[in-house]
């Protein structure tokens, strides 16, 4: 019980056991099959047009790189359509969260790799933000 209420981010991903392991396996099986999910443990699928940004070979969380080929495919894996071209198209079709594409997403917490984003959402482990990132000043003025 103490563990399920622990809101601190884990120092390393703790081994999932019991009910936590079951949740992890269900999430992994369904999301891998549906979205080719990479189990980053801090899911933002709904903000990216249901296109998993961790499939991007550059792990971009904020939009496409400048190397997208003219046919909309990935520069690293040319046979694959750019994850962010899919994200843009997908986000236009969503009934909600369309404007999330314009939000600045925070850096990845790599400690959460291979953990359950559902569990991390419930325990608020995925809400960890580096101190310096919090309440940043309004940027963009000259």
């Amino acid at each position, binding site marked *: 019980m103490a563990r399920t209420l622990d809101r601190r981010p884990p120092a390393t991903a703790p081994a999932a056991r019991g009910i936590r392991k079951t949740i992890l396996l269900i999430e992994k099986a369904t999301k891998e099959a549906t979205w080719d999910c990479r189990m980053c443990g801090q899911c933002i699928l709904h903000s990216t047009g249901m296109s998993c940004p961790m499939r991007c070979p550059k792990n971009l969380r904020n939009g496409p790189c400048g190397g997208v080929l003219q046919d909309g495919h990935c520069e690293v894996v040319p046979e694959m359509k750019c994850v962010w071209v899919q994200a843009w198209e997908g986000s236009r079709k969503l009934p909600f969260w369309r404007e999330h594409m314009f*939000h600045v997403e925070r850096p990845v917490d790599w400690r959460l790799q291979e953990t359950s984003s559902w569990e991390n959402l419930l325990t608020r482990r995925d809400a960890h933000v580096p101190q310096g*990132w919090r309440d940043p000043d309004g940027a963009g003025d000259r």
Partner: protein
Amino acid sequence: MSEPAAPDPPDPPAARSGLHRLLQAGEFVVTAELPATDSAEPTSVHHLGDALRGRVDAVNCTDNSAAHAHLGPLAAAHLLLDRGVEPILQLACRDRNRLALQADMLGAAALGVRNIVCMTGDDVSAGDHPEAKPIYDIDSIHLLRIARIMRDRGTYLSGRPLEHPPTFLIGAVENPFAPPLEFRPMRLGKKIEAGAEFIQTQICFNMDKMRLFMARTRELGLLERVWILAGVFIPRTARATRYLRDMVPGIDVPDPVIERMDSVPAPRQGDEGVAIALELIQQLREIEGISGVHLMTIRNEEAILRVVEGAGLFPRPRPSPEPVR
């Protein structure tokens, strides 16, 4: 009843660099890319710096461009400062994690670098070490925000305070020519929100896409918040234009450009390349919101002066004295 006098407009913030001063003054600025060197001799960079001094306003020190290892950008920037050339330090997320990037930003500031440009970086698969482990700990927008946190809040990303924060002018890149075209101006908006104050675009050959991008950027109200420098490539050979189209991901080289280079005999292709660059610059200057050009070449450095002169941009405004702060 007389209206109360309108308050004086606030003074522009103190210039962070020579480049910043020129941009604030409304000059049409010229930057160029330092050719990557593979030499342990400082003279390799010194010679290039001497050739560019006074001809452009600032010079980009590329960060293992095209995913090939070269003399490091921090060292190159330092060597340029030795020769009185103002550097723009490029920082790519491909080769370093957030610790190393912050360490290099602080080190660069300590060495006198006053302009940085944050980018994701070409993938290792595009280079000569495709077996390498790509890092991509953070993306370019994270890096922009981190630079802004260090400068404006005086802390690392972790929140730990800096003794003396850096004072950079912070730049980013954008590619108006790659899909998803509709999203690109909004992505520019994200970069501005994250902290970008000036933008250098990918090489521009497709003026229609550039005009569309700039029109949309203006509609989004972004032109008042950022200076945009358009990337211009000066081809020396027809082969160079084909190389860009086929080997450098994300560059749109329309067929007419390649056909035009092909249509002149090899010894005169260099002249044709200069002519193409001059025409592009002329058209770019007519677009609202383009504040300057960023010149790029492949083994064609002497063409930079020809283009700067030919475009009526020489001599450059007096080189600024010591950067403020």
